Structure formats: C-alpha cells, structure tokens
C-alpha cells in the first residue's frame, strides 16, 4: 500500500527549508510510520530536490512525524527558479511512498 492510505500530510516553507508533516489517520498506525517512514527514505525520495540533510521529529501525542529538509527550495521562495517555489506540492509526492504490511494483514478483503 501507499503512505497515502494510512496518513495525511502538509508542507510548509521557511527560507530555503521545507518541512513535511506525516500524520497517521489512526493512532494505531503511528508505529508503522515510525518504523517505515525514515529520514533516510525521505531523503532518498527527494534526492533530486533536497540538497541538504533531512531531520525527523516524532510527535507521538498527535501520531505525527515532522520532516525538516534543508536546502530544499532552490534558495527559498523569493529566489527559487521552480514553478512551485514554496514546495507546497512536496507533501503529495511523499504520500506515494510504498508502505509494507500493517493494517492490511488482518482485515484485507477476500
């Protein structure tokens, strides 16, 4: 399944740094996010775009992860050559990430 089946997401921008939240639809799915949506996988997915490091913050209280991606916006919204200078579309791209196992194991349709 895709990340989009179990989580939602929003991108924010500040200077040349983009942050993407990944929030479990259900608190029971949060451990799956923690184990599978790692900073390394996010960095790999955006390797053509993000020049700096990717740091992950965990927020178990709200079943969310926050990825902070340095040097991700072509110099920032004010000087970027990109069409989406804010990087607002990045969250939707991340939701395409493949997730293995999880909710489907017990209640999959026949």
């Amino acid at each position, binding site marked *: 399944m895709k990340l989009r089946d179990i989580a939602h997401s929003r991108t924010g921008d500040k200077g040349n740094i983009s942050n993407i939240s990944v929030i479990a639809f259900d608190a029971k799915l949060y451990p799956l996010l923690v184990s599978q949506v790692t900073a390394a996988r996010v960095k790999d997915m955006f390797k053509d775009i993000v020049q700096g490091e990717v740091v992950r*913050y965990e927020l178990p209280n709200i079943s969310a992860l926050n990825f902070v991606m340095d040097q991700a916006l072509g110099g920032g919204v*004010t000087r970027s050559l990109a069409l989406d200078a804010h990087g607002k579309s990045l969250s939707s791209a991340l939701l395409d990430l493949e997730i293995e196992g999880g909710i489907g194991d017990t209640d999959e349709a026949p």
Partner: protein
Amino acid sequence: MRKIRIGSGAGYSGDRIEPAVELAEKGDIQYLVFECLGERTVALAQQARMKNPDSGFDPLLEERMRAVLPICASKGIKIVTNMGAANPEAAARKTAEIAKAMGLPKLKIAAIVGDDVLDACKGSDLPVLEFDSTMRGLGNKVLSANAYLGAEPMAAALRDGADVVITGRASDPALFLAPMIHAFGWSMSDWNLLGQGIVVGHLLECAGQITGGYFADPGFKDVEGLARLGFPIGEVSEDGTLVVTKVDGSGGEVSARTCKEQLLYEVHDPKRYLQPDVVADFSQVTIEEIGRDRVRVTGGQGTPRPDTLKVSVGYVDSYIGEGQMSYAGSNAVARGRLALDIVRERLKLTGVVTSETRFDLIGVDSLHGETLGARSEPYEVRVRVTGRTDSLREAVRIGNEVETLYTNGPAGGGGATKSARDVVAVASVLLPREQATPSVRFVEA
C-alpha cells in the same frame, strides 16, 4: 473562567474578504485578526514607500477595512493586523480616513512602529543566517531590515484603548497572543502560558488552513463547501485552553486532522519554536474533537524568550529570465524535449551568462524533476526555461531564446510567453533585542 473569542480574518494578503465579514457578523467574536504579511512583502512595500511616502501598506487594506469597520465598530470588535507592512502609520491614517468617510463613531487607531531596524543593521558585522555573508557584505543591495516584534506593543495599544491595532513586521502568532495578554493579564514571563498562546496563534494565523482549506484530497480527505469556506474562531480560556471552531453553516471542517496539519505547518523542531516572546514547545500538545467543528487544544509549553530578534533583510539578489512554449498532440513530449535541448545549446552558443538554470516540461516533470516525473505520457506539454543572471539585459535573452523556437524549433510550438524581472530576496540576521525599540502611535478617526 474568563474566555475570549478571536476570529482569524485572513491567512495572507490576497485572501478572501467575505469570510471575515461573516466572522464579524455572526462569529460572536471580540477580536478580529488579519495576518497579511509574507516573508518578502515588507521589502517590496519599502520599495513602494520610497517612491511614495504615503504608500507601503497592504494593497487590500482599504477594501478590507471598508468591509469590516462598520460591523466591528457597532459591535465593539477590536481589529489587530499586520497590514501596516512597511508603513503602519500611513495605514493607520488611511484607516482613520475610511472610518470618518463612513461616518463611524470615533475610533482609536494605533500604529506600532519600530520594527524598521535598517539603521542598526546596515553595514554591520551581523552574520547572514542563510549563506556566508554579513550585512556589510550585502552592501548597497540591502533595501530593508525589519525585526519580528512580539506581542507587547500590540497588547499595550489594546490596554490604552485601541479599537484597531496596525503593525508592520511582527511574529504572526503574536497578533493573536496580544489580545490574550491584554484580556487575561498574562505575565510576560509565564513561559508555559505564552507557549500555549503561541500554539493558539500558530493554529489560527493561516485562517482557512485550519477549517479545511489547503486540506481536501478527494477520496482521502473530503471537505464540504470549499467555495464558501468559513474562517476559524479561537475560543480561548484564561488558562490558555483553546477550542477551535467556525461559524455555523459555513463551509469546511474543523477536525483533529485539520488541526494536526496546521500545528506542524512551517514548524521545524516542535520542542523549540522560536518566537520573540517565548520559545514555544509543541511536543506535548493534545488535540481532541469535542463536538461537530469543535476541537480542543491544550498542552503548549514554553521556555524563556531568546535574547535576539529575527530580522528579515530584503535585498536585490539577482535577475530571473523566463520563456515558455507549448506542444500538443502526437509526440508532444519528444518535441518538448527537443525544444529544451535547442534552448540549452543556444544559451551556450550565444554566451548568455547564468549562475543557475532550469529546464522543465510542464505536465511532465516541472515540479519534482525527471525521476519522479517519468511516469506518463500526457497529451500536451509546456516547455519552460528559466535562469538567474546578474543583469536584466542578460535575463531578457533567456526568454528570447525560447520565443525564437516559433520559427527555428520543433514543429507545432505555440503560445510563447517571456518575462524578465529583478529578484528581491530575503535573508535573516539576529539582532540583540535592545536594538529594536517599538512604540505605539495613536491616530483618532
């Protein structure tokens, strides 16, 4: 326990106006906050002010004030806004003029000044945070330097009876924190209360983004009534507890999931969200749905405020030239790629000097590059070439090379556009807070 209701009437300068009118009319609010100032807006507004000393405030200020002032005046709703941009005093005078022309009772309108710290910053040794330079290094390219002020001067203006408070550069959540400090008498060193107040402000500051805007994803997150989206109301208790809601019957949704997305929007380390009034800690925040379109948010904490204020420095960075052209029908992507290759070679052949370039096929890979974009073959593509240069003259040449594809490029290219502009960019420095001295100036309508 005492409570106030704060409406969020705008999430950015160009935002819709009628949801704010709806809030004023039907929201049972005591405060209406308009957050209208983007990162680079002050620098552009400073440029406008240099040409005309009575300008430099938000372009929609007049329209917004005309729409809400009569309702707010009749109901005693206080307005707090950063629509002052580069010229809060002119914005206050304009607002007074509007109130007078509309025959409203005497209103006290406060302008918060002192965020302009250009003199303290220009030519100094303060290091730029984003790249290796100092203020001196930026030299004459610097257009503006504005410190993010905290809630104190706005709260002082409210205490002194302001009906409308207009600031320039201030932290966005501080626009909301000020009414809380004023209404509840919060201490400026109660870090946990201030931290929770920042949670409240941060959640409300983008208006529709917490009521279902920037959220809908059909089949995954369906939202009703986006064309008549209601803006949020924060019902804040004296202890900082927030209930987010909206006007009954307006479109959109307030739910745990809309609130969670907004909590992390533009946040880096959730334990250390730096603000002029407090370092807020979002890590222990809890979010619970307590009714239809009612979400309770508690648990924001904080630690002592930083010794420095963040300053946005506007400077002339470079020039950007751009050209676009469309291809459709059979083999469109291949013709688009050929067009890009031709322009790439032409820029070299004709010696256009660029420090950075970008070659996109819109509809194929313009957002996230070739790897993520190489998935489908669309019916049409739009070629886009853009580059950074040191002069406007050089920037113009980029668009020209795209336009000449008409008669010199692949078959069937159409719809060329080109542009060239200067780039006013923003960098940040940290200024010792003593060097910014905000004050309140009143104008009577």
